[in-house]
């Protein structure tokens, strides 16, 4: 069972895109269907495969067959099961890291953008400096410091993306603050907390969704990169990047499936988010 069965979807997409006469819709629909099928896989993994992804057997390095559609790995584990359960690992890390980045980036971005002044200048400067630094390197160093676990991976990725959220939230806050209804609220003496929560926060939501979808594609690649280099979760937890890394050792001996399929999953999921991001990005481009 493969996610996003291509024939059907592409036909659907082309029909839809003709009707709506816009690539944006096509991107949105294909992106959403990829992401939703991955979420479905993550939830339904135990139903989709009879094998335990961490339990080995003596059937090592079997090529793809009816019994093991994607073959088995060097310890005799069913690769399809590992990949399906691996969806859980990466989605959990994505959710955790996003939650962390937002819970740090949102408040400081909001405060920075609303109050401005010296604090804003210092915060912006620090965030810009971190933003310019190669993200994977920073994540590696933090992951190394914390030791391998899904939560720690999420923390190190979150750290890298806080500046992105901060910059966007701050920028949006600035522009919302200058809008009439907020100025009116300030002039009428409404409490600052009420302004922040009632007037500004709801208007930040669309921005958050856009940044999330664009960041998610990046986060997937960063997580996969981290575990490819061996700094993410502890085996035998199924993890695409780690399986790709281990599979690479078997590539030249002809066991291509060990590295091909995990890598393909990374690319597909990242593509799903990138498509959504592209569709939303037409509305609003946070890179500028």
């Amino acid at each position, binding site marked *: 069972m493969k996610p996003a069965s291509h024939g059907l979807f592409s036909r659907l997409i082309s029909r839809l895109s003709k009707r709506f006469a816009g690539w944006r819709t096509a991107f949105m629909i294909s992106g959403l269907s990829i992401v939703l099928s991955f979420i479905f896989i993550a939830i339904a993994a135990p139903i989709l495969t009879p094998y335990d992804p*961490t*339990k*080995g057997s*003596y059937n*090592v390095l079997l090529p793809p067959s009816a019994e093991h559609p994607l073959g088995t790995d*060097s*310890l*005799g584990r069913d690769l399809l099961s590992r990949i399906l359960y691996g969806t859980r690992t990466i989605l959990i890390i994505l959710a955790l890291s996003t939650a962390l980045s937002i819970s740090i980036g949102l408040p400081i971005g909001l405060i920075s953008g609303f109050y401005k002044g010296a604090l804003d200048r210092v915060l912006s400067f620090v965030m810009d400096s971190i933003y310019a630094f190669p993200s994977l390197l920073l994540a590696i160093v933090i992951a*190394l410091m914390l*030791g*391998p676990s899904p939560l720690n991976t999420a923390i190190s990725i979150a750290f890298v993306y806080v500046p992105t959220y901060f910059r966007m939230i701050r920028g949006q806050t600035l522009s919302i603050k200058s809008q009439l209804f907020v100025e009116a609220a300030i002039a009428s003496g409404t409490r600052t907390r009420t302004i922040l929560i009632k007037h500004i926060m709801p208007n930040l939501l669309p921005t958050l969704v856009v940044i999330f979808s664009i960041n998610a594609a990046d986060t997937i690649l960063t997580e996969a990169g981290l575990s490819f280099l*061996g700094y993410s979760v*502890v*085996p*035998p937890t199924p993890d695409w990047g780690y399986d790709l890394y*281990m599979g*690479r*050792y*078997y*590539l*030249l*001996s*002809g*066991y291509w499936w060990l590295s091909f399929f995990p890598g393909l999953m990374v690319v597909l999921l990242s593509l799903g988010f990138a498509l959504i991001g592209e569709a939303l990005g037409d509305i609003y481009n946070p890179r500028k």
Partner: protein
Amino acid sequence: MNKAISRGILAVVVVIIIVVAAVAAYLILNQPSPQQQVQKTLVIGVTDKISDLDTASAYDFFTWEVLNNIMAGLVTYKPGTADLELALASSYEIKDNGTTYIFTLKDNLKFSDGRPLTAQDFVRSINRAVAINAPEGPEWLITSFVKNVTAPDNKTVVFHLFQPVSYFLALLATPPYFPINPAYKPNAVDSDQTAGGAGAYRITKWVRDQELDLEANPYFYNGTPKVSKVIIKFYSDATALRAALQSGEINIAWRTLNPVDISNLKSNPNFNVIQAPSAFIRYLIFNTEMSPVNNVKVRQALAAAINRTDIVNRVFSGTVVPLYSLIPIGMWSYSPVFKKYGDGNLTYAEQLLQQAGYSSSNKLQIDLWYTPSHYGSTEANLAQVLKEQWESTGMVSVTLRSAEWSTYLKQAANGTMMISLFGWYPDYLDPDDYTSPFLDASANTWTGSHYNNTQVNQLLFQARGLTDINQRTSIYQNVQNILANDVPFIPLIQGQLSIVVAKGITGVVLGPDMLLRYWLIGFSS
């Protein structure tokens, strides 16, 4: 920007595209085969690194191999064996109950640049290594045993030892005892010095982490190497090493290919796989004071549940051998004491666990530690297979934990790890180096096993002072039996050296000293 500039940019872009396309086409059509370029040059690929080309600080196997090819000592191992033979020395005698060794040098010895080599060069080199006292260095191989070294005349080297050392000749075969060229800085580590000593080869070029070029030393005491030019190519990982072997870029893939590549290349008609036992061993350490593994029954049960054949096949693709003692197979006094527990003997394991009070409802909860990169890419798999094997008793639940090498070492010394995976490379080929560092309570603090058995301590001390090999053998066998009863360590596997050579390469000899001798290798015509 005006029109001229923009037209200029376009022109440049077009030119770049044309040039790139032309070069690509040229490369594809006119591909020079790598074999043609290296006709009479032997190219050896490795993933190891050279640390320092200095006997005073180098202390790792691969660098020692290179030093053995560009330098020589008084004695050396006969290729392919653990027997010592004379090298730069022509004879020796032992006096004063084994505390004085007197060596006479061969005639007309020369360094590889043609300078004469005398007994004073030995004294200078050895004293230099001691004086420099490099961090992480091998000078203890001298200072722990040698009181002083002198040269009464140009052809005589005399060692005075603190006390008799049964394995002193083996120590003399290690690089800290090699004479080095006077070009080495006298008072400091000279990492990049390429002057070498009096070995079969001399260095013509060295680019760190990329390439080491060697040519035959015309002054070598032991004839002419079969191949006059040797290149060592350094690769950053085993997959790249294998790819280079298959593309013909290298003739020999040496330390260290992936296990799966070695077993896979065995069936490839273009290559020969040569294997020999190595002196490297892998084992588990228990913290014998930490509950629940402070119970000897638990440790014995875990020993019984381990299936070494399964580990050898699934983790190492058959490239290592099962090991049933801390002393490696092939070394005198070796006794497979752990065979009494069987291999994957689940019935026995379950029986022992029940005696210790565990059952399928009241499971034994243990932590197994490993370090992900220090022992190669197979380490995580090794930990996972052990977990599987123990859990297949149905009475054990294993949590895998990992730490980077430095943290790992610290945790071992502090005794904070319940069960941990370690490996051991010997410093000298003697049963003492496989027993004392583990079982002697005064030497095993680094393991964190807290193992302290008075009888064992005494036996080991006694063996060190004896010179009679039969007496020593019976003591080490006794020690091994106690080890198998107390189970503070479980031996798992013994490494195997594997070297893959292209068809037509001859003279690859591997021995227990694990060093490849480049000068014996040649091309069959």
